[in-house]
């Protein structure tokens, strides 16, 4: 916990410093007429102080810093794969349209989680894509992109 607290407090300290500098650039105004950086100036200032306190608290703890794996289980690589798939989906949806991109998304997600049953993956992906398209696009009037192929 000590190492985690030290790392996170330094991260928030960095964030607070960046916001603090940007607030000054935006202009904090005066007490009579506060500027657009006024609140964030105060908030980032306090955040910086609290981050420092957390860092000091963590550093003064007597607990030994142990080298422990940050990720809880052996399966954290799945998260990385899911993350890549999600980013690709966001990128491809306007280009390929909802139907194709969602089919690809679901196929990838099902494959990441259930590698063996290809038929199950294929049928589930088609079903999910078609059902969600009709429910959200046709019934609830959500505006999905048509993409290059017009569907």
């Amino acid at each position: 916990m000590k190492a985690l607290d030290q790392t996170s407090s330094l991260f928030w300290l960095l964030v607070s410093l960046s916001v603090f500098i940007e607030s000054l650039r935006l202009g904090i105004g005066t007490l009579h007429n506060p500027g657009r950086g006024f609140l964030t100036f105060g908030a980032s200032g306090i955040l910086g102080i609290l981050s420092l306190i957390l860092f000091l608290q963590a550093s003064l703890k007597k607990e030994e810093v142990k080298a422990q794996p940050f990720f809880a289980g052996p399966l954290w690589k799945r998260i990385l794969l899911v993350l890549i798939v999600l980013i690709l989906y966001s990128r491809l949806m306007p280009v390929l349209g909802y139907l194709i991109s969602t089919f690809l998304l679901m196929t990838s997600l099902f494959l990441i989680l259930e590698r063996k049953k290809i038929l199950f993956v294929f049928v589930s992906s088609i079903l999910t894509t078609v059902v969600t398209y009709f429910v959200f696009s046709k019934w609830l009037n959500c505006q999905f992109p048509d993409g290059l192929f017009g569907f």
Partner: protein
Amino acid sequence: MGFFDNILYGFQVTFQPINILFCAIGVLVGTLVGVLPGIGPAGAMALLLPATFRFSPTSTIILLAGIYYGVQYGGSTTSILVNIPGEASSVITCIDGYQMARQGRAGPALGIAAWGSFIAGTIANLGLMLVAIPLARAALSFGPPEYFALMCTGLIIVTYLAQGSILRALMMALVGIILGSIGLDVITGLPRFTFGINELTDGVGIIPLVMGLFGISEIFVNLEESLEREIFKTRIKNLWPSLKDWAQAKWAIVRGSIIGFLLGILPGGGAVISTFVAYAVEKKVAKQPERFGKGAIEGVAGPESANNAAAGGSLIPLLSLGIPPNPIMAIFFSALMIHGIQPGPLLIKQNPDLFWGLVASLYMGNALLLILNLPLISMWVKVLKIPYKLLFPLILLFCLIGAYSLNNVTFDLYVMIFFGVVGWMMRKFGYEGAPLILAYVLGPMLENALRQSLLISQGSFMIFITRPISAMALGFAFLLLLSNLFPYFKRQRKKYEEFKE
């Protein structure tokens, strides 16, 4: 109109077919979300919100309210049958609920949870009617300094009641304020913290933010672990608790309802905290406290009543002051704003159909939960058996659709994914999302109130001390912060954290 005329008017609104349908959908979706892991009430509301744009604000709020208390109900099913809480507010139900299931008493446990929720929901609803209107009237005399002080106090209470360290919760509240300031400055109309990205001029959307922090991050956490789970095999019979069960549970339900309602009004994790307090109280007043942890029905009845009553109580600050006390109410707040309704003291006067319709829908929703869910328990058990491998891709897709359909821009998808990763990291490092979301919503209002107060006082902070309500609110917040420095309060807090673990 008199009090009873208003209630009748509310029922007229609620009994419109579209509102009955929305209430039924809400409680069913809520129960489903409560049963399933991964999406949570805030995520579910965020997902359905874009679909409600073409319906009236009243129907939308009835739907969202249905989801909210449906979740409280659904969470208990998994706690009792699987020993896995569907929601944080059902954690404590696992202790005695699961033990009851192991002893072949899953039926009475589920039954008393449902009846307790129904009775508590009804009591909280009465409280809502009695408290919200006078509070809204009183709030009409509030100016920017009072609002600033109340919001500050709200944020301090949220951080004080946070599940982890107060320091980290305070930090998250400040990060929320900073996030809330992204976009156009209301007074000057100039952009800030947009980094030249056009989509950020409207600020960070609450839907992708909530879905990322609560929905996507929850899935990431689950993905790290094994996706297999065991369901305790038991026959569910005798859903109607016996007379002995009723005799043991009746006062637990009443106490749980009162505790839940009062704590629900407070900013912070009302529903969650109230279940822990209700359980602790039941254990304290029990003649045989050693029964707790071994299948005591009061250990189910008290917390389950408390979380439903808290759901009703938490509507009070939103509807009468326009201040959301928890992240779920923040979604309500956003839903009202999207539909062009300003939450605050004038809401009840200007939108009586919405307020009284909501109140009546709470009665109807509680009754629907009982009528629909007790016979449907076997269906919810089947839902529990859906493998995670099938469930998670679906939840991810729903999150993507929900985030996209609000503005129909892919930028919101990136925002959601980004906050999904942030939320996952926050969990790893022990930071909570609730103070961040609440501060994000309150931030712009807080800033307006602060700047207006300083304009009124010509730059003097004394305005917050010379006005009695703001002085009392800020004084209370200060004392709350200070109390954590005293060893007694530290010990109590540590005890509370140990108890929760």
